[in-house]
């Protein structure tokens, strides 16, 4: 004989137990795992020709204005590094204010407010290396995000969800390229996203457009007629920190072994 009290009790339990798996399924649903493979689609790739860069920093300035990164904050989605290799074997490198004002002086920032002026006779070689997020095929920053606030789109770009980001900073730590930082206004993780609002409209990224010397190129590397794809396939390109297995999709021409 079942009492009314028991009836209500058991039915509530029953509902509770059946309801749990319904919402829990959301977390573990494996659908879509298959879809990622072998569909012919867009994959954005980037090519940096370090031999063409003169260190004017127009790319950094354009990036900061386009993507609303306050200029006075010492952070940037893209930056340009200067490498000066001396005859005595020393390697000096700097990127004052991410090079948003270019490189006007030959004295090199050594950190802690110190500068070193190098003489022309002491220089073996010197060059500039533009850097940005590598939009890795295996992005470690996405793997470590505990809340699903950073993700890889189907066209290969890694984005950050500002509404979802809790600001834990794991991704900033996980990026081997130092491409991530905290947005000084939104206080969420921030990084280069290949100007996603521009490339999805058929425009070039702000930095590519701003570069007067063609040192930066962007394209769909899955497209057989694409310039960037063609150079990556047919010329000798390299990537940064290949040994990390992140499969970066920013390729470099004319990289030197000193560049890290």
């Amino acid at each position, binding site marked *: 004989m079942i009492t009314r009290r028991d009836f209500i009790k058991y039915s509530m339990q029953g509902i*509770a137990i059946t309801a749990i798996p319904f919402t829990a399924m959301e977390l573990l649903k494996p659908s879509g795992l298959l879809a990622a493979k072998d569909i012919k689609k867009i994959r954005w790739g980037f090519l940096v020709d370090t031999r063409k860069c003169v260190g004017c920093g127009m790319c950094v300035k354009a990036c900061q204005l386009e993507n609303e990164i306050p200029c006075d904050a010492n952070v940037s989605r893209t930056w340009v590094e200067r490498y000066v290799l001396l005859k005595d074997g020393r390697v000096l490198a700097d990127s004052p204010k991410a090079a948003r004002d*270019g*490189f006007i002086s030959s004295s090199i920032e050594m950190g802690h407010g110190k500068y070193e002026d190098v003489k022309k006779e002491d220089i073996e070689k010197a*060059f500039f290396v533009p850097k940005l997020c590598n939009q890795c095929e295996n992005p470690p920053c996405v793997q470590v995000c505990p809340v699903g606030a*950073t993700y890889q789109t189907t066209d290969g770009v890694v984005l950050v969800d500002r509404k979802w980001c809790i600001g834990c900073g794991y991704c900033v730590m996980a990026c081997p390229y130092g491409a991530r930082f905290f947005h000084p206004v939104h206080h969420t993780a921030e990084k280069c996203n290949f100007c996603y609002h521009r490339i999805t409209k058929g425009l070039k990224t702000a930095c590519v457009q701003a570069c007067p010397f063609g040192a930066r190129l962007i394209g769909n590397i899955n497209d057989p007629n694409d310039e960037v794809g063609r150079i990556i396939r047919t010329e000798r390109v390299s990537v940064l920190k290949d040994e990390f297995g992140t499969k970066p999709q920013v390729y470099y021409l004319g990289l030197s072994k000193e560049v890290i």
Partner: protein
Amino acid sequence: MRSHIWRPLYVVIGIIFLALVIRGFVVPKSFGIHEKGYIYGWYNKADENFWKEVKVKYRSSEYCKDCHGNNLSLIKQTPHAVIQCENCHGPAIDHPENPAKLAIDKSREQCLRCHSYLPYPTSNRSKIKGIDPERHNSGVECIMCHNPHKPSLNSLRGLK
């Protein structure tokens, strides 16, 4: 078993249930596992639109053609043709509606980005004519003597 063993378990189950119910309301429908799988594609799909809808600010030199055609055709014949108008005048955004006028960067620093001499023979920087900013007419705007849209040394402005 006795109820004092079951009771905490009910509480735990209740909390889990409550959490899942709240999650059902708080987490948007578009949040879940998408094409890139659990490791790389666990996110809110709707956020992609947030990034796609960011305002485009740099419009390229082509955009200026209709209204400032003479500046464009002038600079196109000079080595400064490679420099985007907006590199010196700032992003156009919706100019001339907003902003009505674009800035004019007359600072020496703007020119020195490319023209301050750096002793780097192995870099392309050395292919651009370099000056020593301390020695080359310091304290005066470069554009007093050089026309930024027509930098040719044959067409220097005014005083020499």
